[in-house]
């Protein structure tokens, strides 16, 4: 799907999808018969879920737009996108040992939305209750974090997280009034912070109405990477190994900002997530699905069928996650769903690094990937972090994309970072 230039000395150009020439309405997948909410939980909480010690358990009725806690009444963390009854709660282990609680809800008739959000808004639009609601919007905006101390720059990003998706550009263009309302709300919430709108160059002309400081960026991967955007905006890179939030940056995707604007306008929570679908016949479609809709249901709506040995990917082609079942739900931050046949399956080999230097050239973080991989293959993770800049990685996946020896570079890097954080956690626990 990527056309490669004959001139190999040039860096590979990976343009993001664009939205130009008309804004077709997304395909609505309708109300699913059942949805699944996915909540990341800690390892200790996993056993609680398995022992059925959750508040949301089989038989509990949920109301659309209501907010619920998983373990206790006080910490509310889940908004229900549909009304219905919880049928079961189970756990799943995701990549890198992350645990998820899965709450299955059988949909009942679509009644009026729960008044909880409207009440919270009337009480105090900037209050903690209202922000908790807003943090659950499609795109997962970090409103709760924004209200806390220490955020000096807020990036409103119209750039995409990965290739093969254009939801942010669509949301920005099609829902501009809502986007402006959302952006103004963010400015009110954080009056001292610098709010910057980052958008592809071709959309720069449309940014005037928003009334923000803007920065135009070439629509090429990986320019939309949060860490790279932060560097571009502040002129100084986030310290290696620190997250964006720890350094005082927050990134809101355009879709999330528009959703917040709509929530404020309509006094109800939008629960439709925009997703770009890439089907087996290379067709792409923009769909709008209720958060929690199983992928199988979306495929049903667009007439795609999964066969044995297919590849199903949530998220983009460079940083997404491949999943083993089409019952996996769309979550608030799933921008793209890709499905392709086994013929497109990238093959890995047992070759060693041949030191061709392509990864070093393409790495946006200037890491010595060729030396790093030699340390990682031998499990020398600490040495890799100290000498070979492991912590500078922005997790774009380009090194693996370009690798001539088809080494799983990205996987090795992610594994090393995961192992190091786990070790740190363990050391902290031991220290206490």
């Amino acid at each position, binding site marked *: *799907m*990527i056309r*490669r230039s*004959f*001139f190999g000395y040039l860096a590979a150009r990976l343009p993001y999808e664009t939205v130009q020439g008309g804004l077709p309405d997304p395909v609505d997948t309708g109300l699913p018969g059942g949805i699944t909410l996915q909540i990341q939980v800690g390892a200790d909480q996993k056993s609680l879920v398995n022992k059925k010690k959750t508040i949301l358990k089989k038989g509990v009725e949920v109301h659309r737009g209501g907010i619920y806690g998983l373990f206790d009444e006080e910490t509310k963390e889940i908004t229900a996108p549909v009304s219905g009854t919880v049928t079961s709660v189970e756990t*799943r282990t995701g990549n890198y040992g992350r645990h998820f609680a*899965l709450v299955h809800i059988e949909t009942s008739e679509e009644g009026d939305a729960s008044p909880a959000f409207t009440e919270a808004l009337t009480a105090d639009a900037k209050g903690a209750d209202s922000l908790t609601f807003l943090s659950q919007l499609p795109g997962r905006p970090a409103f709760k974090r924004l209200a806390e101390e220490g955020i000096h720059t807020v990036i409103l990003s119209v750039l995409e997280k990965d290739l093969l998706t254009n939801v942010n550009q669509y949301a920005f263009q099609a829902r501009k009034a809502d986007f402006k309302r959302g952006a103004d709300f963010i400015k009110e919430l954080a009056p001292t912070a610098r709010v910057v709108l980052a958008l592809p160059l071709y959309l720069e002309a449309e940014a005037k109405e928003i009334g923000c400081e803007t920065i135009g960026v070439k629509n090429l991967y990986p320019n939309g990477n949060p*860490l790279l955007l932060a*560097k571009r905006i502040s002129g100084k*890179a986030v*310290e*290696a*190994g*620190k997250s964006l939030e720890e350094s005082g940056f927050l990134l809101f995707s355009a879709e999330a900002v528009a959703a917040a604007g709509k929530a404020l306008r309509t006094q109800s929570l939008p629960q439709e997530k925009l997703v770009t679908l890439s089907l087996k016949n290379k067709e792409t479609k923009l769909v709008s699905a209720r958060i929690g809709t199983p992928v199988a249901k979306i495929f049903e709506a667009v007439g795609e069928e999964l*066969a*044995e040995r*297919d*590849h199903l990917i949530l*998220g983009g*082609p*460079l*940083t*997404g*996650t*491949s*999943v*083993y*079942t*089409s019952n*996996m739900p769309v979550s608030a931050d799933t921008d793209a769903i*890709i499905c*392709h046949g*086994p013929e*497109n*399956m*990238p*093959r*890995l080999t*047992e*070759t*060693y690094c*041949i*030191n*061709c*230097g392509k990864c*070093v050239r393409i790495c946006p973080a*200037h890491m*010595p990937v060729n030396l790093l991989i030699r340390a990682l293959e031998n499990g020398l993770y600490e040495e890799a972090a100290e000498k070979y800049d492991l*912590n*500078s990685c*922005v997790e774009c996946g*380009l090194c*693996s994309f*370009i*690798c*001539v*020896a*088809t080494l799983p570079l*990205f996987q090795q890097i*992610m594994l090393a970072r995961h192992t190091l954080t786990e070790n740190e956690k363990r050391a902290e626990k031991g220290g206490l």
Partner: protein
Amino acid sequence: MTDSTKLIVSHAPFYRDACTVMKRSYLIMAAALVAIIPGLLIFGIPAVGVCALAVASAILWELTANTLMKQTPTIGDGNAAMIGLILAMLLPATAPWWMVITGTFVAVIMSKTVFGGIGGNPFCPPALSAAVLMISWPHLMNFNGMLVNYDMAWSMVDPLINAKFFGAETADLYTTTDLLMGHQAGGIGAVCGAGLIIGGIFLMVRGINRWEICLSFLSGIFTSALLFHMSNPDLYAGPIFHLLTGYTLVAAFFLATEDASSPVNTIPMLIYGFGGGMLTVLIRNKGAWVDGALFAVLLMNLANPILDMIRPKALGKV
């Protein structure tokens, strides 16, 4: 959460650039052939024999090593064949069969496989092997002696020997056109300057050779040869002569750029190439050997790990 349709899972990224080690080896061999075919036309059947034997024995040596070490055969990646072909470029057309086989043994087993296979070799295998042959059997790597039976329309005296021992004016015997068309004595793939330049440009444009190395190597030769020539025009031949004779172009496009033994960051690549070019001319003009290109490449290979420590600061590193 499970269902009956079994899907394939793997780690991101799900896109791959199409270039593979095999494709890379074949492209390098294709570029080498552009220079070798004129050589074959000039030197005839003996040269064909040397090339074929070098490629075949290199593959067999690698297969033998794989079998002895109980590894999955790696000959499929084309790297062994490529090493054999590049070594053949450096040999005289009349090289005896046992020397070719010894050469590929040194190139494949002693300079690649013992260091852990592809990507692990500290030296460029064909360069190391040719240097070993040159030191072990100097008379068999002497193009004057080896090509004595070739009676051509042009001078079959090795231009480098002429220039070294009979003064710089002998360089005028060889016109630039002759050197470009392969009208000189030399290795099978090293005589045709035009072919080497076309092949080299192809490799640089396709991004297989790092162009920084090739161009800085050539500019190193040019600069130092020019300085020598300016200091004493009677003793030292000019830069164009040095660029088109001996192993210069082979070294610039096929030996110095060998992946595992050359640096990957920009500044180290420039130092590596320029240093290699300068050493070549130094050894030619001041050293005991007629052609210094092989030794220059090997010496710079030795410096590669240290050179490659000069690298840009990673993102967010304090």
